[in-house]
């Protein structure tokens, strides 16, 4: 028996849409040795998950394998009968899904789901499997390993569920595990723990794995070799270190280059100047629960202030206070030195015009029934009073500004645009009001890296040309590094630390900032090892957070 565990040759997969079969994967081949971890990366729509599932001999409804062979330990999964495949799945090939919360059955306890595989496959008795489950939970560093398995999925947090799912995949000690974006839905500090535990357990049991992700830095930590996919085509494959240091293909190089975008540092702020926006001692509540506590910061002309924090830190709530959607309970907002009415309903047209907003989900930010011309034209007409030809001219100028061909896009509907183009339209709509200040709420987090970089460059260019001020809400520190002038770190509704970017990225800083910064994966394959050594293996995220 050769040491190649999984051998895929010229795999072609088709999906059914509009009553015909269209290709999704156009010939992917791969070899995976025992104990080897293959990282599979690509943007959305590259077909990563489809290939991952196909490696298990499984296709979703409306998808079929049209060509090629998938050999697992000498068994051709394309031609194997359903019964043969059932014997392999769960027992020798296991799967860890992206959303553990949705992939655990809400009606059963974790342990019941954990032991189901081993018992059904006749690998172990319920009792043995339960004991083994507790052991796996311990190895994956779950809190209360003896007890946690007897809870229902909704009683356990996301990061813990993801580890419990890894334990479940391990239950039969499979030869191969497919990890399908297991940490994408998690916060950075939680992600570290999950990454570390997954890597340890895969190493301990010498399991082969395919690790699917869109995050290069993550794959650098996990994989022995990396395969890059683009729209169902294989771009290249190489050993991790080679791939990171010397990618061959243009596409790969451009992916790598995204991380290098950074704006020059601007001179220090003139402290005596009136800030464009000043948030003063704002405390805000949803119902009776305070979600913001005494938040104050300034945003100066021509500057980008990045507000960073994990989910639930109050970043977006701050934005809602500024726009007047959530009038603060205490404190107020000043614009150019004059206080704004608390609710947007009391603000006048000019006050509304001066502060614009760009949203995270371009899909929901644009009215799907309105053409691009109408969407951008409305603020032009509403605020500037332009009509007819003048309005059209202004819209075309704005389209040119955001680097879209005016005549081509004027009559299109949002559904006819790509994600990045939609986000550009959102920017143009904000610009149409000719504001001084724009709130950018996670504007790049739903986009692929290359596209996101384009948006960041565009925003930087517009700031230089028009002297705009940005409040840039994000959870992604790489984005902060590339675009921010000042940084505000928020946690549980409070500002933890603030200052110029340079200061924020050099120690010493607040322990939370430290934790946040150090948790962001870097492209260096040794980064995770170094970090774990620094923190001490047992002193992972949970512990670090608890200490504060």
């Amino acid at each position, binding site marked *: 028996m050769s040491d190649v565990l999984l051998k895929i040759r010229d795999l072609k997969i088709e999906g059914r849409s509009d009553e015909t079969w269209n290709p999704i994967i156009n010939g992917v081949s791969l070899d995976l040795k025992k104990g080897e971890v293959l990282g599979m990366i690509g943007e959305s729509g590259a077909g990563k998950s489809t290939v991952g599932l196909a490696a298990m001999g499984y296709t979703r409804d409306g998808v079929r394998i049209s060509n090629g062979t998938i050999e697992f330990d000498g068994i051709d999964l394309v031609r194997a009968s359903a019964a043969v495949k059932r014997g392999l*799945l769960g027992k020798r090939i296991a*799967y860890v899904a992206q959303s553990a919360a*949705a*992939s*655990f059955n809400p009606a059963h306890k974790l342990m019941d789901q954990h032991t189901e*595989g081993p018992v*059904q*496959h006749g690998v172990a008795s319920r009792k043995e499997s339960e004991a083994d489950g507790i052991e796996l939970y311990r190895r994956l560093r779950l809190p209360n390993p003896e007890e946690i398995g007897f809870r229902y999925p*909704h009683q356990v947090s996301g990061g813990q569920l993801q580890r419990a799912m890894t334990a479940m995949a391990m239950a039969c000690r499979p030869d191969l595990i497919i990890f399908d974006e297991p940490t994408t839905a998690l916060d950075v500090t939680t992600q570290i723990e999950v990454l570390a535990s997954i890597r340890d357990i895969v190493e301990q049991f010498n399991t082969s794995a395919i690790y699917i992700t869109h995050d290069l830095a993550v794959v650098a930590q996990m994989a022995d070799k990396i395969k890059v996919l683009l729209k169902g085509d294989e771009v290249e494959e190489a050993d991790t270190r080679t791939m990171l240091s010397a990618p061959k293909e243009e596409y790969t190089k451009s992916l790598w280059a995204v991380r290098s975008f950074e704006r020059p540092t601007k001179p220090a702020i003139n402290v005596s100047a009136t800030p464009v926006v000043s948030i003063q001692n704002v405390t805000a509540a949803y119902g009776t629960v305070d979600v913001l506590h005494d938040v104050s910061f300034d945003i100066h002309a021509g500057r980008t202030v990045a507000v960073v924090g994990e989910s639930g830190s109050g970043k977006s709530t701050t934005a809602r206070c500024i726009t007047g959607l959530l009038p603060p309970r205490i404190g107020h907002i000043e614009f150019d030195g004059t206080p704004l009415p608390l609710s947007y309903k009391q603000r006048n047209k000019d006050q509304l015009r001066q502060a614009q907003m760009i949203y995270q989900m371009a899909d929901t930010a644009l009215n799907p029934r309105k053409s691009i011309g109408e969407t951008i034209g409305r603020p032009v007409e509403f605020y500037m009073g332009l009509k007819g030809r003048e309005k059209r001219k202004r819209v075309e100028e704005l389209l040119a500004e955001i680097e879209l061909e005016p005549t081509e896009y004027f009559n299109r509907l949002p559904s006819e645009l790509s994600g990045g183009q939609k986000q550009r339209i959102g920017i143009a709509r904000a610009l149409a009001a000719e504001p001084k200040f724009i709130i950018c709420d996670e504007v790049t987090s739903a986009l692929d890296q290359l596209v996101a970089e384009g948006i960041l460059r565009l925003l930087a260019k517009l700031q230089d040309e028009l002297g705009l001020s940005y409040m840039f809400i994000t959870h992604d520190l790489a984005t902060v590094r590339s675009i921010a002038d000042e940084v505000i770190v928020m946690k549980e509704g409070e500002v933890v630390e603030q200052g110029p970017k340079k200061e924020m990225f050099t120690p010493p800083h607040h322990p939370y900032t430290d934790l946040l910064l150090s948790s962001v994966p870097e492209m260096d394959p040794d980064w995770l090892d170094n970090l774990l050594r620094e923190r001490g293996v047992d002193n992972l995220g949970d512990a670090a957070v608890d200490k504060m």
Partner: protein
Amino acid sequence: MHKPVAGLIRIILQRLLLGLLTLFAVSIIIFIAVNALPGDFAESILGQGATAEAVNAIREQLGLNESPLSRYFSWLSGVLRGDFGIPMSQALFQSFTGASTGGEVVTVVDQIVPRLKNTLFLAGVSAAISVPLAVTLGILTALYRNTAFDKAMNVSTLSAISSPEFFLAYILILFLAVLNPVFPSLSNIFPGMEFSDRLNKTMLPALTLTLAVTAQMMRMTRAAIINLLASPYIEMARLKGLSPMRVIVTHALPNALAPIITVVALNLAYLVTGVVVVEVVFVYPGIGQLFVDSVKIRDIPVVQACCLIFAAVYILLNLTADILSIISNPRLRHPK
């Protein structure tokens, strides 16, 4: 274990209270509607040729001389004591023959109770046929969706839903009573008849209701199951190499229970409406027919009582669905 149960009981009590409130609101709506009759309904019923004494007698009988508010509360307190008053026909009879006849007074309750029993029997028979049939077919069409079987079922259930009950009823009469005399087309049910005979005579109306309700129930079950089968945990169960049977029984079914229960209860509530037309077609002595007859002769006390009973059944079924789906939800059974 005490805390989750207490929480659950609190939610259920809340729903029960809400149901009672709704019923109270319904009683107000019914009362207002009835009082919207032109002028005074004693006159409008007796017609223009009525003598002043007759009108007055009716007024006395129905308590029309009191204020609307006090009438409402005396009606409501009567209802709470199980007293819906006496039917107009009786009141009329008495007003013409002198208020106290000394003969037996047939109250609204006396009229309604035996008929309500008949209707419940009819609804019970059709539920006994349609629920298992609909759930089985719903699951089968969901499992074999987009096959010829599924498409054929889709077309036939849509057709059944679209047909008025009386159309289905006459088709059944045509094929099962006239062309092939399997069941009688008239359901003359009377007290004290044998069960098998009763069942035989109830069969055609029950089958009509079954046809009308099964289609809707099956489609809703199918949609619920398909929705469920698309969830990631079902895919996970398949990827664990479990047999299709096990995927369905241990992973899909516990979660399908709540939506299926809701579907069943909603459709049984729909039976209440269907019963009216079907009882008229088959001359079935149930509450539906009594209702229609009372509507035609404007026998207000009976109409009021029937309306309230129909609404109560309807609310009760919806409430049952609500509570059962709360109980079957693990998130509510085992709170954090």
